[in-house]
């Protein structure tokens, strides 16, 4: 039903069921919001979005109030502005005020609100709290002193990820956000996905930085410092430097990494190809030998920990393949070190990931060879941007370069790993070849593309109809696993990513991207795939060479030693 409402004396058309905020956003008329999260049920708790509605005594929250026909709304009357201002002043009254030292300086919603509302003096002084930093996690640092209790992290963790590691604790002015029994994230069910960081308006949540140790090793003349970057980094890093979303700056990034001083620049998309070789072979093996099905991908460390905690009966369904990051790490310190005559102990292996959970994965005890860890440090996309700035590099002036060839050449199948559905599509392409000996006529598996949280498709591989499902956001994963438990048997292969939309929307990516930006990132990845000559992992010449010279064959002895892993059940507290 079509309605008409009046906002600041402008007539706007609206639909029944719209909230005031829906109509305002569609018409480019902003009111500030804090607790509001697109796609989730409004809680109306922060009251930042209040507006005046004719005939209503109290201000109403635009994010939760449905429109009525003929509603008359004022979004920026003095009364409204005063009240928003007071809210922000109250939020500021016990804030630590250390913007100059804060990770989110210049990119903080609280700062922006206070600027937009023209707050120029401290009218209200509150008692500062003295909550302790939570540095217990390998991935995430929490600073409750900077928390303004908008609740977005709690909601993402619960409603999108189904993890519920954090919750409001206590009451009234003593409320803060914490894990159960104040144990710290490390001992909680947290899977390190970093989605809470992505929604945090302030500096209360951030990644555990590995910049310092990376710098130390860069300046150590005895160390060979190698960097790899995940498939999605080249299409998101640009946003940190003012480019529009979806720009692929891979060449410039290679150049920047060399300027910083990395001795070798490798592309994790190469080891994504390697993952596909192993994983597609594993799938074919399971299908042919009556192994455990459906097989579930294991390249997302957030999902892996989640499965270890909440889906212990499905652990055998997980592929034993290490993730591309870890495969690359293992190959660097074995094959590459041998062929270059470098002592693996003298290699410092850094990766740039769209992900905070990779920091956790990197330090898992399974991810070592003879006591040497596969990967030594993990930087998020944001940290890489910081490192580039720290080195005074003007990326607008760099000429594109290519990555180092041995472990830097990829097929486009490895590149699309960055989007939800990409791993599935890449694996299907190679599995098709392994089973039928022929390439697919059309490589695209359209049914698994896109940002929806759940996608399913049937793929014909020779005689076999293979059922595939792709989920992102761990709550969606849990729902699918429940269906499998309840007897669904038409699915053979499942891809799970913890972050909605996959790594392009990972917890380590630039903050503040909207759905359009994420779509643009995805589109670029598939464009690259469209244009590339080599679209399948098994045709990557350097992958072929790696098997010829070193690994033997997929699932062979060497692969098992270096590229496969096992999982552990974890008690959830």
């Amino acid at each position, binding site marked *: 039903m079509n309605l008409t409402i009046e906002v600041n004396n402008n007539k706007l058309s609206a639909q029944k069921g719209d909230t005031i905020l829906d109509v305002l956003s569609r018409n480019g008329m902003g009111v500030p919001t804090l607790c509001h999260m697109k796609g989730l049920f409004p809680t109306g708790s922060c009251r930042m979005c209040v507006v005046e509605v004719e005939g209503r005594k109290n201000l109403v929250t635009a994010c939760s109030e449905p429109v009525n026909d003929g509603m008359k709304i004022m979004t920026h009357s003095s009364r409204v502005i005063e009240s928003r201002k007071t809210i922000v002043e109250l939020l500021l009254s016990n804030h630590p005020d250390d913007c100059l030292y804060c990770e989110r300086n210049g990119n903080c919603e609280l700062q922006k609100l206070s600027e937009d509302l023209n707050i120029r003096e401290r009218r209200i002084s509150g008692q500062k709290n003295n909550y302790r930093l939570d540095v217990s996690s390998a991935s995430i640092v929490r600073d409750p002193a900077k928390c303004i209790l908008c609740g977005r992290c709690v909601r993402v963790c619960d409603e999108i990820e189904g993890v519920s590691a954090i919750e409001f604790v206590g009451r009234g002015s003593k409320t803060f956000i914490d894990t159960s*029994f104040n144990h710290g994230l490390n001992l909680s069910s947290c899977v390190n996905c970093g989605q809470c960081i992505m929604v945090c308006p302030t500096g209360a949540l951030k990644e555990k930085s590995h910049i310092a140790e990376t710098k130390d090793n860069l300046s150590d003349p005895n160390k060979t410092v190698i960097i790899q970057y995940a498939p999605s980094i080249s299409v998101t890093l640009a946003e940190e430097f003012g480019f529009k979303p979806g720009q692929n700056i891979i060449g410039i990034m290679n150049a920047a990494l060399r300027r910083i001083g990395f001795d070798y620049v490798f592309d994790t998309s190469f080891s994504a190809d390697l993952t596909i070789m192993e994983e597609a072979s594993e799938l074919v093996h399971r299908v042919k030998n009556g192994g455990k099905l459906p097989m579930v991908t294991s390249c997302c460390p957030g999902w892996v920990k989640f499965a270890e905690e909440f889906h212990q009966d499905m652990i055998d369904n997980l592929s034993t393949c290490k993730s591309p990051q870890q495969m690359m790490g293992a190959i660097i310190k074995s094959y590459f070190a041998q062929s270059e005559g470098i002592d693996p102990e003298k290699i410092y292996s850094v990766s740039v990931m769209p992900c905070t959970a990779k920091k956790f994965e990197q330090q898992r005890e399974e991810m070592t060879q003879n006591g040497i860890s596969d990967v030594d440090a993990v930087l998020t996309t944001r940290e890489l941007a910081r490192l580039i700035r720290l080195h005074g590099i003007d990326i607008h002036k760099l000429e594109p370069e290519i990555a180092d060839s041995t472990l830097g050449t990829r097929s486009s199948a490895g590149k699309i790993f960055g989007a939800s559905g990409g791993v599935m599509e890449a694996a299907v392409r190679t599995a098709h070849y392994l089973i039928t000996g022929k390439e697919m006529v059309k490589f695209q598996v359209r049914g698994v593309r896109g940002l929806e949280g759940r996608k399913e498709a049937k793929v014909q591989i020779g005689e076999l109809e293979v059922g595939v499902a792709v989920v992102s956001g761990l709550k969606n994963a849990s729902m699918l696993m429940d269906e499998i438990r309840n007897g669904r048997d038409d699915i053979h292969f499942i891809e799970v990513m913890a972050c909605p939309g996959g790594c392009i929307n990972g917890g380590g990516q630039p903050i503040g991207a909207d759905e359009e930006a994420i779509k643009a990132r995805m589109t670029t990845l598939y464009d690259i795939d469209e244009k590339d000559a080599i679209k399948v992992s098994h045709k990557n010449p350097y992958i072929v060479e790696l098997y010829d010279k070193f690994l033997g064959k997929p699932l062979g002895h060497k692969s098992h030693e270096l590229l496969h892993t096992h999982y552990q059940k974890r008690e959830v*507290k």
Partner: protein
Amino acid sequence: MTSSIQEILNKYPNAGHDSLIPILQQVQEHMGYLSEESVVEVGKYLNMPTSKIFGVATFYNQFRFNAPGKFHVQVCRGTACHVLGSATVLNEIEKNLKIKAGQTTKDKMFSLEVVACIGACGLAPVISINGEFHAKVTSETIKTIFDSYRNREVVS
């Protein structure tokens, strides 16, 4: 211990989230506090994350998360006691016992709880130790009171 929590849970067949508070109350009545294990178990039973249960339980003053000590100290923070300085009393006791409200001393001798009016306003500020009331407590008398309990412990 576990089995007795199971007994409590058995009294709530097909329980939903609305049974959380009564279950927690019974657990606390039974154990004197909400242990971590009990919260995990209740969570499994109600299919609720422990963080949520912890969140709910910390909202209410009545729930404790530490085993009570041999002597359980309740400090009244009702209006009459407040007017006559119960904030200072609480402060002093916390200093004396080296714990905060809600905690139990390392030697498990004392546990400290803040309560709303205990109905002895005439005695304000009042504290109760294992049900024995101590009236018109001041900073000066606190040491004497607590030392007397410590001595009791040695004698017995």
